[in-house]
């Protein structure tokens, strides 16, 4: 197809900044992290299904294999990632619901809350694992 002779010269037009050259505001970080952790939690749901199947199989029905895989360094890392994802998505999800009701849109407040949510999610996930590692979990045994 021949070039349109009336096509305007598209040179030296100012471009809107792209993601890669943006200085990422912290609210942008929480937004993409919310989506990332949501996808991660879907993986967690598949792991949960596997665990439930193992439990339903009873003794010698794969529960030992699950626990063996889960207690490897990679397994623990994945479980920590899913735990952190749950805590983050939980906290930021509550903020999303507050936004839907019209609260928390002030720029400074939104930035402060983003930092608080990041900090609390890491502290929360560490607290869960610290409780388990120090033997304070397992209270349903």
């Amino acid at each position: 197809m021949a070039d349109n002779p009336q096509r305007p010269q598209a040179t030296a037009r100012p471009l809107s900044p792209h993601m890669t050259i943006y200085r990422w505001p912290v609210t942008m970080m929480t937004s993409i992290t919310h989506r990332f952790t949501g996808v991660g939690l879907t993986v967690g749901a598949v792991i949960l299904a596997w665990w439930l199947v193992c439990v339903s199989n009873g003794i010698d029905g794969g529960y030992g294999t699950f626990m063996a895989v889960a207690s490897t360094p990679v397994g623990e890392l994945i479980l920590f990632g899913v735990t952190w994802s749950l805590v983050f998505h939980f906290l930021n999800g509550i903020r999303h619901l507050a936004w839907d009701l019209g609260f928390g849109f002030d720029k400074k407040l939104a930035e402060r809350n983003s930092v608080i949510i990041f900090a609390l999610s890491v502290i929360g996930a560490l607290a869960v694992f610290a409780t388990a590692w120090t033997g304070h979990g397992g209270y349903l045994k």
Partner: protein
Amino acid sequence: MSTAQTPLHKVQGMGSSHSGTGHFWRERITALALIPLSLWFLFTMLGMAGASVVTPAQFFQHPWNGALMAAFVSFSLYHAALGLQVVIEDYVHTAGTKIFSLLAIRGALLACWIVSIFAILRITVS
């Protein structure tokens, strides 16, 4: 002709999006239900840390616990289906690939749900 909207869409108050606020609303309702359910799930799982298979097997035999687990799994996977749908709609722009991805995701999540619920029922009746 002053508008490109079909009479049906005009009546339904919908534009080129083809749908209304149903998706948004379901995402919020499932999120609301997941607030208490997630807390229950986290404290339940922590209570089973390092336990043998006997602990969860006995725990979920109690109807309340089995029902709560079924609720947590169901709301989670429905919420995940709604969320992943948005992710695909945002990043996949080819019509064929988009429809295939949406069907694949829904099929996988539905399979995950069936397996989970079946396992919970199996624990309850065992």
